[in-house]
């Protein structure tokens, strides 16, 4: 029976390349998917590209994975699909071609997918009456129209599959949905029809369990984090599919854990309604899915169902929203929290006198409540035994000069405020705040293209 194994090589831009390299060298896989794009990543790349047109993609895919193990992957016929192309798919693809040429990899085929970037189509869509409604129910699109960094549709598997059909050894994309990077090779291998919803849904969930890398094999594992072996060399998950089964495992001779509980935690990660998990390729129904241990570091996932794909595509629009700055100051026992709190009040009184106009100010105390906020334990016992506490003040304003006003006000508190304060990390900076406008676009506004560069 035909069996295809695909590995998850990267969970985000900045992830460790070790598991991907180990997997290429040691696991019996035919494909690997490497996800680089989170919700905000495209906007960050767009901003980089605006400053330097040669940028706008994740160079790490080439510098940290392909340069280390790309040739070996090619020799072993492991084909890699990645969305590392970000905002500059052609730039990413040509940098890979330059490397492969220098390596003398004659015949190496680089596929790349275009069509997700809708910036140029925006005026026409607006003229045609498309209003880009905010799915969170707020605001008027016309108000952000002039502050947009990027407009990218989450596209499905088609472009990647097109490249694989043309013999690509590596496929580079922009805003292809993370899980579609994994569905594409599976659909290509098993020859599933474009409306074979149950099979497509299974392929998507294979991708879903792999697209976050180590989070699918013992990383961020709440059930029993101490039980995860050799976390310092955490292996990433591998999905093995046949025509009608799916199992999740990991590479031999590496750390990590694949069990029912680790798999369940990732299964619903970033899922909203489990009966209608919307992707560009299929509407997935997880409501009756089952996850069972079938061997050491091996689980079987079954009863995933699929329904017709949505008529619209999710759109990722990043726009300039304003500025932010964050100031921090640490305080030592005794009364660390009380002193930090008092110091925060002093700073805010000074800011009032300096006339700082901020749309939002958020004050929290690292080591006490900056993560759990209102549900943190603020009991007398918790406060009394506190060894140290870091005051954190975050300010948002549409005017960078207003944000900047608080920057020089933090460090003087070491000498001018309550005792036991120490300033660390240097003066803070004003950072731009990019916001996302969640909306959808009609499917026919997107034209996906699959292209090939041959070395």
């Amino acid at each position, binding site marked *: 029976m035909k069996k295809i194994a695909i590995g998850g090589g990267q969970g985000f831009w900045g992830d460790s390349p070790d598991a991907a390299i180990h997997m290429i060298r040691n696991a019996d896989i035919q494909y690997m998917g490497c996800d680089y794009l*989170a*919700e*905000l990543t495209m*906007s960050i790349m767009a901003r980089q590209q605006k400053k330097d047109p040669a940028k706008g993609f994740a160079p790490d895919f080439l510098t940290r994975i392909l340069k280390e193990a790309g040739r070996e992957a090619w020799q072993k016929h492991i084909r890699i699909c990645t969305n590392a192309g970000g905002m500059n798919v052609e730039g990413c693809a040509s940098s890979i071609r330059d490397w492969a040429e220098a390596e003398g990899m004659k015949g190496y085929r680089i596929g790349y997918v275009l069509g997700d970037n809708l910036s140029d189509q925006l005026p026409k869509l607006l003229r045609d009456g498309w209003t880009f409604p905010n799915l*969170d129910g707020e605001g008027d699109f016309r108000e952000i129209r002039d502050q947009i960094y990027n407009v990218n549709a989450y596209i499905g598997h088609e472009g990647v599959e097109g490249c694989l059909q043309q013999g690509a050894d590596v496929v580079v994309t922009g805003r292809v949905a993370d899980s579609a990077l994994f569905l594409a090779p599976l659909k290509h291998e098993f020859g599933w029809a474009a409306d074979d919803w149950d099979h497509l849904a299974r392929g998507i969930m294979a991708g879903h369990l792999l697209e976050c890398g180590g*989070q699918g094999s013992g990383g*961020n594992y*709440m*059930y*029993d984090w101490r039980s995860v072996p050799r976390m310092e060399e955490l292996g990433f998950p591998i999905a093995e599919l046949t025509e009608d089964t799916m199992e999740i495992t990991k590479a031999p001779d590496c750390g990590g854990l694949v069990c029912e*509980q680790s798999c*369940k*935690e*990732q*299964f*619903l*990660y*970033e*899922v*909203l*309604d*489990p*009966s209608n998990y919307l992707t560009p390729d299929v509407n997935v129904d*997880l*409501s*009756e*899915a*089952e*996850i069972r241990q079938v061997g050491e570091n091996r689980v079987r996932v079954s*009863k995933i169902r699929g329904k017709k794909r949505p008529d619209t595509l999710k759109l990722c629009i*990043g726009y300039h*929203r304003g500025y*932010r700055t*964050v100031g921090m100051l640490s305080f030592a026992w005794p009364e660390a929290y009380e002193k930090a709190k008092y110091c925060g009040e002093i700073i805010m009184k000074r800011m009032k006198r300096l006339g700082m106009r901020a749309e*939002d*100010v*958020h004050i*929290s105390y*690292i080591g006490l409540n*900056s*993560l*759990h*906020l*209102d*549900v943190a*334990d603020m009991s007398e016992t918790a406060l009394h035994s506190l060894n140290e506490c870091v005051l*954190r003040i*975050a*300010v*948002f304003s549409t005017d960078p000069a207003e944000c900047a006003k608080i920057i020089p006000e933090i460090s003087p508190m070491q000498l001018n405020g309550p005792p036991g304060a120490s300033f660390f990390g240097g003066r803070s900076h004003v950072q731009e*705040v*990019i*916001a*996302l406008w*969640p909306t959808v676009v009609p499917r026919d506004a997107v034209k996906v293209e699959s292209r090939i560069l041959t070395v």
Partner: protein
Amino acid sequence: MREICLLEIAHGRSGDKGDTSNVCVFARKPEYYSIIEREVTPERLKEYFGEMVKGEITRYPLPALGGFNFVMRHALGGGATMSLRLDSLGKSMGSAVMRMKIQVKDGELD
């Protein structure tokens, strides 16, 4: 009756989509599923989080997996890009749910 932290009988993970946070909560043993069903209602969770979660909370049961998915709207102070919170992605919303106190009957966990 006695009071315990949800963490004693459950595990899970949080994720983010814009300003929406999802937290999946799975029973550590199959028999704990009904305790979670009884104790961790959307209403209880909404009351627990107070101002921290400004929008609606929906609970989706997944009996075949022995757990629930909770979807909390306007829960991340504006979402990854806008939030002034240290944990703008709500990575710790999962453990925040797990420290909620719940009531268990005598002998119910044996």
